């Protein structure tokens, strides 16, 4: 990988900026021309974009393929739950409460005598929608605002960071009770909106920190010296180098959002019956952990599988975006 010799060296701790600045502008310029390595040069001499390169890498990555299969499966049962589960998730018979597996109920019954298998399958739609959309919303809003604050610094940073501080200070319980109690619609949208509103500061701060680090790199200085525009620098030079922590936090946050939906339901301001979700089931089954652990196990397991798939996906995407690995 001939590219690597141009990879700007990060400052060795304690030596200050000196060594790093030794890198000549000409070398940085080379880097600027060939971000994708030798194969990256397209027919017209136009460099193939980092993103298409990443996609090429991804398709060959087994980790990505496995996670993609799991995610596709989740999407499938979200769209068409009756394909693999018969009966209604709302049909509950108290006489069967806390019973173990039986015919038609491979996962047993919960505290209300509802079929855990059916509910877990039907819960996927709500939970995956909430998790994915909230994460996307938080990820996009947080990383954009954080990146802007970190890149431009100064007044921008001050304003955005202080807004972040204010949002950080709102307790989730209070925010939920206030903002969601006025909502009468029993759909996932208010819940997702709430999570984005209160969740973006976390990603925002992470993204800001990463951008502040990345923008010190010599290739950024070099690109700027060559007259590259701010948007080009942010998107082409800083974003790929700053995105890793954002992906890590976002993929874990996906799981916590699915769980947060349960907390909101528990507080009486989230999704209300007849909605079905893993979160609702997990929070309902938690007190019965001693007597009916199976009712907790399956929705939690489904949540774990989903988070695993997205963590793996995040890992694969991060690897694909990392030019140093190429």
């Amino acid at each position, binding site marked *: 990988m001939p590219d690597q010799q141009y990879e700007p060296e990060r400052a060795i701790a304690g030596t200050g900026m000196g060594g790093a600045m030794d890198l000549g502008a000409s070398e940085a310029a080379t880097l600027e021309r060939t971000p994708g390595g030798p194969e990256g040069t397209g027919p017209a001499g136009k460099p193939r974009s980092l993103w298409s390169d990443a996609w090429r890498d991804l398709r060959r990555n087994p980790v990505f393929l496995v996670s993609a299969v799991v995610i596709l499966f989740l999407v499938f049962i979200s769209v068409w739950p009756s394909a693999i589960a018969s009966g*209604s998730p*709302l*049909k*509950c*018979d*108290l*006489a069967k*409460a806390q019973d173990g597996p039986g015919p038609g109920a491979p996962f047993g019954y919960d*505290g*209300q*005598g509802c079929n855990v298998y059916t509910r877990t399958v039907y819960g996927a739609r709500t939970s995956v929608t909430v998790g994915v959309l909230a994460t996307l919303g938080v990820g996009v809003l947080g990383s954009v605002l954080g990146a802007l604050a970190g890149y431009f610094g100064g007044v921008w940073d001050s304003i955005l960071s202080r807004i972040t501080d204010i949002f950080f200070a709102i307790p989730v319980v209070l925010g*939920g*009770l206030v903002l*969601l*109690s006025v909502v009468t619609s029993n759909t996932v949208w208010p819940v997702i909106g709430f999570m984005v509103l209160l969740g973006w500061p976390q990603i925002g701060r992470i993204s800001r920190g990463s951008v502040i680090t990345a923008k010190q790199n010599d290739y950024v200085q070099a690109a700027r010296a060559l007259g590259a525009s701010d948007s080009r620098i942010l998107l082409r030079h800083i974003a790929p180098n700053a995105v890793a922590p954002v992906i890590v936090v976002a993929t874990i946050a996906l799981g916590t959002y699915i769980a947060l939906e349960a907390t909101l339901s*528990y*507080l*009486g*301001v989230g999704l*209300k*019956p*007849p909605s079905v979700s893993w979160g609702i089931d997990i929070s*309902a089954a938690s*007190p*019965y952990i*001693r*007597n009916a652990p199976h009712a907790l196990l399956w929705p939690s397991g489904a949540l774990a599988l989903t988070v695993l798939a997205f963590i793996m996906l995040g890992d694969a995407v991060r690897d694909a975006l990392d030019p140093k690995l190429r």
Partner: protein
Amino acid sequence: MRGIAHARWAAGVIAAGLLATGCGDSGGFGGAGVLTSSWGDPQNPLEPANTNEVQGGKVLDMIFRGLKKYDPRTGKAQNWLAASIDTGDSRNFTIKVKDGWTFSNGEKVTARSFVDAWNYGASLRNNQKNAYFFAYIDGYDKVHPDSGTQTADTLSGLRVTGPDTFTVRLNQKFSSFPDTLGYAAFAPLPRAFFTDHAAWLKKPVGNGPYRIESYTRGSAMNLRKWAGYPGPDKAQNAGVTLLVYTDSNTAYTDVLAGNLDLVDDVPSTQLKNVETDLNGRYINTPAGILQTLAFPYYDPKWDTPGATKVRTGLSMAINRRQITETIFRGTRTPATDWTSPVLGAAGGYKPGLCGHACDYDPAQAKKLIQEGGGIPGGQLKITYNADTGSHKQWVDAVCNSINNTLGNDKACVGNPVGTFADFRNQIGQHKMTGPFRAGWQMDYPLIQNFLQPLYYTGASSNDGKWSNSRFDRLVDRANAETGQAAAVRLFQQAEEVVRDNMAAIPLWYQNGSAGYASRLSHVALNPFSVPVYNEIRVG
């Protein structure tokens, strides 16, 4: 490098800490003859007329004794500080206070101790949340007008006629008035309460078998046996330490671990294990609490003859037995009337008064609901507050029962409200569109208390604004009746009016439950689901 050194130091601290806890420490608060008991942070200052929930009530029950006391087992009101309460017309009462009673600070309990306390409790300016208890006394409308400022400081119906006697004049006939006097709001108060109120609140002084030794608000209260207590119900232990728990489950766990002696609210999710966990050291006794579903009669949809049929049908669609056994594990009993078993037959409890309307009969239920025109609005939303208790569990179970009866998954859904305050707000502003949770804990063991505040036109807890002139007339007549048996008969007739209209669907009678450590004996709960602390023996 500094960060790493710091981390290493931290690891050392944690390891040391683990070793230290390994030794284990138990008790600490207890001590010889003193038991520890779970407690909740009282919501209001601990004044007798300002305490309307059971946690503050626990303390008042230990440090105060009133004119009457309810027998911890039968709930019957007996004279305690009262030597006699006489009346000729059910309206004018002459009360004579027994000699020999003092507060734990040495001050004598006199007629004035009562009159001053009641005047304080009734006065609008003192913000006492139980002020309405004095509403039967003449002059209440002057001391506590519905709006505007008060025009008198004291109730004109109260007069001290001697060091030990005073008279009470009521604004209407109320034959069972003497039996209400065991309620904590009617407790006597020492002069110190009025002269140095702030100090009294920090460390309340009363005339009960215990005195408060120390009180750390929000975490613990140490009560010690008052050696000079003149009454017959002296404390059988050296004292009680009440420890505030944020969660009853934690208190229960602490009892299992031997860190706590008594938990008086066993969480329903632990009930399945409680017998084996505690090896039989578990009590489950009826308390004067009835859970019902109330309806909004200000919504015209619910105030029709058809809706009466629908309500009766809904009542028959609820499998009470199954829910009380599965969800509550026998700590609730299916209700068959609108009172409570703690009243006893003589007191007005009449099992089966509800008749077939409280039996589970899916076929008949479905028929009645259809005849009545179906559920008003198409879907039944049972509103409850999500922040206290495990209401979600039983509301979901009730809905599932109704849904199964009607063969429709979405006929009934739970409708949680985030906070109790918001729940009460929505009720107060008449925003309910369907049934809502209504729990009633009796103030005193009288059938009147289960009916009049809840169903009388315009009564304080008639949240659904139900109104029925026949019911009102029967209650008025019952209150004027001097003989208890005759009064009870009239109240039961009024209750039948409630039944025929299915004004509220009775669900179940609630029990009090408690678990305790092996070093305790003679543990019991009174009909108010409060432990009878003075009878508990330690060791």
